[in-house]
Every structure is written in structure tokens, then in C-alpha cells.
């Protein structure tokens, strides 16, 4: 199956969270200039879950996403990703890079596709970085593009794509290496409500098929009802953890 779990990793149990954030704090500066971006935030996200991080600007959403994405070390607390305890002084920069490559897929507010690579190569690049041989990587990339219904644009450069097409190519890139965790930063911000709905349905479908956890930062109230849970942050603290009945398409 195209989006089945990684062949080398055991399928995680739904009882064990894929993302476990325990009392994570992050502060910037010291003394009078100290800013507490996160204060002892704890969340858990399980396989097949699609959760949202909400909050006003400056509430710590992006900081939390950066911490979960292994691109910013928290000041204190623990982070466990798919059973691996991260930031315990045993992780080198290159290990974190490899962890990102193997376990995390990123979807950005703007598609962030490399403008000089066509759609196929944008997707295949992730696989090549993971060590796939070029022809196999391209073949898998084309399969993914077909699955996301942008296969007909496989040779197009990002500049030639519509917003919806570009976001679907970006999703294909995020899924290419079969990550167990997908982090999305405002994935529907650049899309109209119809396309935003399509993308959210797609993410939900992927979470189920790939046994993955999806965490999305969003302000888009049109898609709130598409999430299983909503974590609301305010002033760096977790204010609410609301469970919703997600509306799958």
C-alpha cells in the first residue's frame, strides 16, 4: 500500500503516544529581558490523531512546533518522539537532522518548494537525502504525486502550480519518507475554504492510512471541526485541551 508504515519501524501502538511533550519550557534572554515562550507545556498525540495548536500571536505555538520538530532545544522538560527520548544530551545536531528526516514531515504555511526543482524532484529529494537510490526515489515521488492527484503536474516547476496544487506537492514531500509525525504550520493559510477542506481531509486520510500523528498550527476557524483535539496556548501555557469529534470526509 502506498502510504503504509515504514518497513523498518514497528507500527506504534495506539496506546503509546507518538509525540509526548512533558513539562517543556523555553525561555529567551535572561534577567529583565527574559521572555518565557513556553511554560511547562505537556501534550501527548497518538497515532491517527489530527490535532490543532491554537492561540493568539506570541502564545508559543511556533515555539512548541519548533521544539517538537527538533529544531529548537527546550530550556527544560522532555520530548519523546515515536519512543525516542530527544534532547537528553546524547543527540548530536546530525542525529536530530536524521531524526527529522526519518520521522517528521513538515508542511509549511507557504509551500516552501524549492523553485528550481520540478514537482517530482522536490518530493524525490527527501528520499534521496534518506538514502534512496535516484530512480527508486523518483518512482516513489511520482506515485505520491499521483495519489495526491497532482501527478499530471510532475514535471512542472512550483511557479507554474496553483496554490492548491503546490500545497499538495508540499504534502507529498512531507509524506515521502513515510514519517510517523507530520507537523504543519498553517497548512491552509494560503488556500480558499474549499481547498482548505480538501487538504484537511487529505491529512486526516493520511493519518489513518499511515498510522501517523498530525499536529497543525492554525488560525483558520473554518477547519477547526476537522481536528480530533485542539490544544490552546496562551502566554506560553497550555490553556485548554479540547476533544472534538472530527468530521472526516
Amino acid at each position: 500500500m502506498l502510504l503504509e508504515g515504514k518497513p523498518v519501524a514497528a507500527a506504534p501502538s495506539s496506546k503509546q503516544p507518538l509525540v509526548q511533550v512533558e513539562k517543556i519550557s523555553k525561555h529567551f534572554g535572561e534577567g529583565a529581558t527574559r521572555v518565557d515562550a513556553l511554560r511547562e507545556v505537556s501534550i501527548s498525540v497518538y497515532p491517527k490523531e489530527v490535532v490543532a495548536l491554537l492561540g493568539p500571536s506570541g502564545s508559543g505555538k511556533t515555539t512548541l512546533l519548533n521544539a517538537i520538530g527538533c529544531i529548537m532545544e527546550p530550556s527544560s522538560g522532555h520530548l519523546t518522539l515515536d519512543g525516542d527520548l530527544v534532547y537528553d544530551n546524547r543527540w548530536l545536531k546530525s542525529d536530530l537532522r536524521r531524526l527529522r528526516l526519518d520521522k517528521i514531515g513538515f508542511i509549511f504555511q507557504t509551500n516552501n518548494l524549492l523553485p528550481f526543482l520540478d514537482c517530482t524532484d522536490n518530493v524525490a529529494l527527501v528520499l534521496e537525502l534518506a538514502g534512496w537510490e535516484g530512480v527508486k526515489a523518483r518512482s516513489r515521488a511520482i506515485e505520491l504525486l499521483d495519489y495526491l492527484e497532482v501527478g499530471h503536474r510532475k514535471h512542472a516547476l512550483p511557479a507554474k502550480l496553483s496554490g492548491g496544487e503546490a500545497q499538495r506537492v508540499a504534502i507529498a514531500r512531507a509524506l515521502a519518507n513515510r514519517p510517523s509525525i507530520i507537523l504543519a504550520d498553517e497548512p491552509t493559510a494560503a488556500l480558499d475554504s474549499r481547498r482548505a477542506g480538501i487538504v484537511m481531509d487529505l491529512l486526516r486520510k493520511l493519518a489513518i492510512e499511515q498510522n501517523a500523528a498530525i499536529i497543525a498550527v492554525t488560525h483558520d476557524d473554518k477547519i477547526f471541526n476537522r481536528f480530533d483535539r485542539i490544544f490552546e496556548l496562551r502566554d506560553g501555557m497550555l490553556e485548554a485541551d479540547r476533544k472534538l469529534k472530527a468530521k472526516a470526509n
Partner: protein
Amino acid sequence: MGRQNYKWKSAVNLAYREVRHKLGRFLLTCVGLSLLLGVVLSMIGIYRGLVDDALTILRVPKIDIWVVEAGTLGPFAEASRIPGDTREAIARLSGITAAGAVTYQTVEANHAGRKLRLYAIGYEVGRPGGPEQVSAGRLIVRSHYEIIADEQTGMNLGDRIKLGRRSFTVVGLTKHHVASGGDPAIYMSLRDSQVLQFELAPPAARREIARGAAVLSLDTVNAVVARADPKVDTEAVADTIRRWKHLGAMTQQEQERVLTGSVVDRARKQIGLFTAILLTVSTVIIALIIYTMTMDKLRGIATLKLIGAPDSRIIGLILQQAVAMGVIGFVFGAALVTLVHGHFPRRVLLLPQDVGLIGLIVLFVCIAASSLGVRVALKVDPANALGG
């Protein structure tokens, strides 16, 4: 962590793809760089041409010993005048197989409606001092009014040119016989050159006679050149000549050292300095171009880092573009100089070792210049890829 052990085979060359994406801009940059590197190569070529030309004049007669006025460095570095009959005395020395008297002077003449500055070399026909072969035509066989001219004069066989008060016919052509100052050489008989150099104009001669001055002898030469027996120590023969107080003697090696060490040395320093400045400017330009190109793709670099690209891949992207720019610029530059060097007023001699050396320097410069871009790229926070 479960690592996949797939065989590494890169298919996506980021540097190449980005260059292809912005091909026009990249090529335009390369063309600009090639002009700069072309100038660098030209400067070195001009210096090599200058030295080679100067040495050609020196080496053509196949001389072992230069006999000059005592206390001077010879006709190329300073004025030297000795009596013409010195040749007979030198020719009779033990170890000398042949000797000839020569004169050197710069003359200006009109030819085909333009002014020519010429380096006139007078030699005794049949004796050392003149060319042994020509690229076209023949050697001088008559005692008067025939010249051999270098192709750079623009003259052709059979052309006539007025030098002083007499007309001369071009009977032969040479290639690359140019003085260190850049003036193309012409060869004429010693007698003609002495007349050209020392004979007074009729009014001046009449005035000299009227005031009872001694009649000037025309038999003065600038040097006597001699060939030594290969079995004889040339230095020892030169020492023998030096014992005559009114003469100085230099071996061929000494004469070449004088020419390259003092006469051409200033040009070497000037051109060397200019070349160094141009290379420095090239380095700064390459560094700025690479820096600007890196700044243009900071978001892309952040994305690459976020999706797991190792630093080596990002360094490779910048380094490959810098090297490609340098190599393409260098090849274009070298091709340009090769195509147009014939139109330079001075001879441009591109030696393979110089081209190779400059190529290596350009390669080093590109790698050094890309370090600024690499530094910026490595500092990019992958978190920059997130957010709007």
C-alpha cells in the same frame, strides 16, 4: 533509530538545477567574470610576450659573447659605442669562431600613411648579428638599401620605406622580432645603419667642415657579437676581452639577465601588481556574487535543513556554483583572449603553464570566495522555513 541502508546515488544535483533555473543570470555573471579573468590572462600574456620578444632579438644571432663599451651594460640597457674595427681584434682572439659588429637604434618612419616606430638593427651581412632565417622572402644579400622587417610592422615583401634620407626595400619578413619597448625590428646592413645613425645632414656636415672640426668616422658600432668554440670556456674568453680597458664583455647569459633583470623588470613588477589587483577584485566580485546568490535562497536553505539535508549538501550547493562560475568564467576568458590576442598592440603569449596556474588560482579563489556564502548558509536556522 531505524536507519535505512540504501545505496547512495544522488540524482538531484541542486547546484546544477538552480543554475539551470536561472541560466540567463548565471551565464551573464560568468560572462562578466570571464572578461575580468580575460584581462588577467592578457596581462600575464603581455608580460610573457614582452620577455619573449626581448629575448628573441637577443637570441636570434646565436651569440656567445657580447663585447660592449667598457663600464656599460651593453646596447639594450644603456648607450654603448665602440670603434667598428674592434671586430677584427675580437675575431682574432683564441676561442672565437666568428664575430660581427652590430648597431641598435630606434627610428620613426612613415609607411602606408601611418607612423611606424622601428627598432633598426644593423649587422654585417654574412657575419653574426642578424637573423639566420626569415619567415618569408630572403636574407639581405646586398650591401645597401635592403631590409628585413618584422611582420608586426605591417610591411610586405617588396614594400619601400624611407629611413633617414634613403629608401629601403623589404626583402624578408620575420616573426616576433620585437624590442623590449614593443617596437618591431628591422634588419639592415651595418653600413646602412651606421649612415642612418651617425651621418650628419648635409648642412650640419658643411658647418662642421667650416669650423674646422675633425671629420667624424662613421665606423662606430654599438657592440661586437662573437661566437665561441663550443670546446672553449666562454667565461674565460670574456675575461680575456675584459682585460682590454676600453672594452667590456658579457656572456649571452649575462646579457639575458641584464635584459630581463633590469630592462623588463619594471614591466614585470607593474604587470604583476596589476594582475594581483585584478585577481583580488575577481575574488571580491566572486565572493559578492556567491553571497548574493546565497542570500537569495536563504528560505530554500532553511527548508533543506528542516527536511534533513546535511550541511555537506548545502555547502556542496554553494561550492559547486562558485566553482562552476569560476571555471566557466575562466574558460570563456581564456577563449576570448585566444580569439582576440592578435588584435592587441603588443604580443600576448599565453603559455600553457601560465594558463594552468591561473586556472588553479581561480579555483582556489572561488573556493575561498564561497566561504562567505557558506558561512551565511550554515548559520541559517531551519526554523526560518516555518512561518509565513
